[in-house]
């Protein structure tokens, strides 16, 4: 439903560029002074090792280990299209808005839903009434209190057709939202009521188990009514923007820099350590990398493709790779020959692709080979693994050849079709590799067709010219329904022409089901049915890959790739404690670095939710608390109270998906 596109198009204009730039820079790097350079950087202190992390009783770092200057330089990939939370779309805006605003719920460093502007909430038994209790100590950056009225105003503004919000569909589970969006009802009819100054009630159309996660999305943020009414569409500019998050907008030089400073009026300001956060829109990943290497950036949005080996070798501590909530796959057009009603043939093509080879040789960044639609990493959900996932590749290919022959194709009469993809280096490499594997294993004659992204989208949707096409999905909220719903009959993004009444009925059941365990089982069955029909070819799970300064801590890798600056802080460089590093010790240090896995930052034990958090005392309690704060609400309780009293962190968040695992 509310998902964003996979922005392969971003790279379109530089594909050709990379092919020249990379070799050129690599030659220089190899030839020139790679090691000298690292030494120089170590001396400069910008990439120096941090001191050991010591946390106090509320899970924040003790002051003596903190760097004096707490200013973050963060690459944001692109210019945000807007900082109006209700018009925002795309990742760049979302990253900044998470720092500027706070929704009813927020996220912990590891991506769990935690209380935000609301410190606790009740959900009625039928799941259709949410009551939120707002913090009484929450203030806007200008000192006004954050009240339930602000949320009512914000949600109504977001749904108002006059606002023309693209992401207002996030609000659709709310009662009357669809009618308000369509202009049939006035925004005041939206199912949102301020019970008193600090109590907000939201009535739902359907019980939506992932609704709490949606409430951390920018379309549901409150806005400061007085300043919106005073400044109109210019309210999101520096000087005008009044926000309720941990930071305030202080400067915006379009396409150069967006500067945020700490919001002194934020309710949890005493635990916000970074004083200043700068966001830069580096569209070219090699530029961002060079700036990172020069010590001028602490965090990049991505890393250049093809540089994995080099980065892993030279920046093992800086390179951070972790699974992302997104799947990459090929779709079949089931309304067109030769794939219409031809399950065996589709299966043959699916089996013939060696996913290990594709992820190792083509994507190269530790992407996980995938056999299902829903990517791993969603709490409490494990996809049904098809039988063939357990086979060896040789067995799969054997079966593929059998099915291929059964479908009536052979060497003399090979299958011919087109693979269509959206312009982009990754997509092209993937399509090329798949075509050659198909040729090698089955003798298939596949031709490649590269299309500009909007043309591709249109062709895909019309289902007239497509046969096999590149597809992918990255979800905004961690719920399998977001993926499964794509294959519903008549869904706008059902580019496959997949239509199965049983599948649709199962989806309806999932949508109406409120008991988590039953819902989970239903989704499992739904996905299993989908996989057995083979309307698509699963290929791999996306990863996020970026460079992070090793002294920047407080954040953790999470499948959502949401990282709040308020959790982060800089540690002192270790060399400050023990100056005069000699050449010998540096060698030892380097060896130690190489033995570490990339991105060790995510192994930290930072609970990171300020003073609401007490360190866990025993495992049982932790597990219990983990359940209480998750989205799963035990059905037999009349009112489920999720307050911050039982908000306990998981002591050590090791979900077993270290980058090393992914890379092996």
């Amino acid at each position: 439903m509310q998902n964003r596109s996979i922005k392969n198009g971003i790279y379109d204009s530089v594909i050709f560029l990379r092919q020249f730039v990379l070799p050129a820079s690599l030659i220089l790097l190899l030839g020139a002074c790679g090691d000298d350079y690292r030494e120089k950087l170590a001396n400069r202190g910008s990439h120096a090792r941090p001191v050991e992390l010591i946390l106090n009783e509320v899970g924040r770092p003790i002051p003596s280990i903190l760097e004096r200057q707490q200013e973050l330089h963060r690459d944001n990939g692109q210019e945000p299209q807007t900082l109006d939370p209700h018009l925002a779309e795309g990742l760049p805006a979302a990253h900044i808005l998470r720092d500027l605003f706070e929704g009813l719920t927020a996220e912990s460093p590891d991506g769990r839903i935690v209380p935000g502007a609301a410190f606790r909430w009740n959900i009625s038994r039928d799941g259709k009434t949410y009551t939120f209790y707002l913090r009484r100590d929450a203030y806007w950056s200008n000192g006004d209190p954050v009240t339930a009225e602000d949320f009512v105003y914000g949600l109504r503004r977001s749904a108002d057709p006059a606002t023309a919000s693209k992401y207002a569909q996030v609000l659709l589970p709310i009662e009357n939202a669809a009618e308000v969006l369509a202009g049939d009802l006035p925004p005041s009819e939206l199912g949102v009521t301020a019970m008193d100054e600090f109590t907000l009630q939201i009535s739902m159309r359907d019980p939506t188990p992932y609704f709490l996660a949606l409430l951390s999305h920018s379309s549901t943020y409150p806005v400061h009514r007085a300043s919106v009414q005073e400044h109109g569409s210019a309210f999101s500019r520096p000087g005008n923007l009044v926000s309720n998050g941990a930071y305030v907008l202080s400067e915006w030089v379009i396409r150069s820099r967006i500067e945020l400073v700490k919001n002194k009026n934020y309710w949890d300001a005493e635990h916000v350590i970074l004083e200043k956060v700068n966001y830069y829109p580096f569209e070219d990943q090699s530029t961002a990398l060079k700036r990172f290497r020069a010590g001028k950036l602490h965090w990049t949005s991505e890393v250049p493709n093809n540089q994995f080996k080099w980065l892993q070798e030279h920046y093992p501590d800086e390179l951070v790779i972790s699974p992302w909530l997104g799947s990459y796959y090929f779709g079949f057009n089931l309304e067109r020959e030769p794939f219409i009603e031809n399950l065996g043939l589709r299966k043959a093509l699916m089996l013939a692709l060696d996913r290990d080879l594709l992820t190792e040789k083509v994507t190269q960044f530790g992407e996980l080979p995938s056999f299902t639609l829903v990517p791993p990493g969603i709490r409490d959900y494990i996809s049904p693994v098809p039988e063939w996932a357990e086979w060896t590749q040789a067995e799969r290919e054997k079966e593929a050849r059998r099915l291929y022959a059964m479908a009536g194709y052979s060497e003399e009469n090979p299958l011919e079709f087109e693979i269509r993809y959206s312009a982009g280096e990754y997509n092209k490499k993937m399509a090329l590799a798949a075509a050659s594997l198909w040729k090698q294993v089955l003798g298939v004659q596949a031709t490649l067709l590269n299309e500009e992204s909007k043309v591709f989208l249109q062709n895909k949707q019309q289902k007239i010219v497509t046969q096999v096409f590149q597809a992918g999905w990255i979800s905004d909220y961690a719920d399998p329904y977001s993926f499964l719903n794509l294959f519903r009959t008549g869904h706008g993004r059902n580019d496959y022409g997949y239509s199965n009444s049983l599948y649709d009925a199962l989806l309806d059941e999932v949508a109406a089901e409120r008991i988590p365990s039953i819902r989970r089982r239903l989704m499992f069955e739904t996905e299993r049915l989908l996989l057995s029909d083979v309307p698509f070819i699963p290929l791999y799970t996306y990863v996020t890959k970026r460079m992070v300064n090793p002294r920047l801590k407080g954040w953790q890798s999470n499948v959502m790739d949401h990282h709040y600056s308020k959790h982060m802080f800089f540690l002192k460089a270790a060399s400050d404690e023990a100056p005069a590093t000699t050449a010998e010790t540096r060698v030892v240090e380097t060896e130690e670095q190489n033995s570490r896995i990339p991105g060790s930052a995510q192994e930290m034990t930072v609970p990171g939710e300020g003073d609401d958090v007490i360190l866990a005392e025993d495992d049982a309690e932790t597990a219990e608390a983990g359940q209480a704060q998750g989205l799963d609400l035990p059905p037999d309780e009349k009112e489920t109270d999720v307050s911050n009293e039982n908000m306990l962190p998981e002591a050590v968040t090791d979900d077993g998906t270290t980058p090393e695992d992914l890379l092996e």
Partner: protein
Amino acid sequence: MIQDSSMARHMLWRLLGLIPTLLMLITVAFFLMRVAPGGPFDSEMLLPAEIEANLNAKYHLDESLLQQYFRYISQVAVLDFGPSIQYKDWTVNELIGQGMRVSLTIGLAAMVLAFVVGTLLGIIAALRQNTRADYLLMGVAMLGISIPNFVIAPILILLLAVYAGWLPAGGWDWSIASMVLPVVTLSLPVTAYIARLTRGSMIEVMHSNFIRSARAKGLPERVVIRRHALRPALLPVISFLGPATAGMISGSVIIERIFSIPGLGSYFVQGALNRDYTLVMGVVIFYGVLIILLNFLVDMVYAWFNPKVRYDETS
């Protein structure tokens, strides 16, 4: 006197000619942009019909194409390019205003650099024709022309920014340091081109009759070059300047991207890819005016430089 007034009349005509040219440009660009498949709100995330309707209504995309066209023309007539569909917090006027300052700064700085260095090198090479200095300079110039700047840029960044740490590795803050690399990179191929152009025409001029007469009069070589050879030798360079300047200001897309500079170029490219109709139209019109004006300017300078070209008969 007669000549001056006809010159002024000619200038006036040329300026008036700008209006139909621009109108044509706007019309063609407007409809071409709409012919391209897809729209500004298409993305992998599909919009519910009611939301798409709200968006279309907000940007008047629900009206007929002709209605939209006339609406746009009447807006442009009062120099209002409308709101950007992509960058929602800014109007196209603001975006172009900001981008223009950056692009003009880089483009003009690079042009001045290229002109000064290029002519200087060209003259030196011409005067030392067929010596080692000539071969070396022209060899380097040939390299400068043939190596694209998206290769030179990362090399310069690596050497001067990453290894040496003297200059920033991209980014833009209006400091001289952040301008050096992009300006130099942008000017290199043009410098090389101007150097070769100058050399060629200088050699030709040095072999012409009037130079021989000047020498025969016993003028010192320095005076011969400065007073007699330079002006005619620079003529081809002057006529190259117009398109080259326009090209530098408008064509620095790759440089802007590599150095992460907030100029106009990427509005053009990204705007087109995103189907940000208003932004693309704004940039097209801006470039159109710029190119027409620059060519106009060059013609004027050319006439002033070259007595053979006067505009008595035209108009």
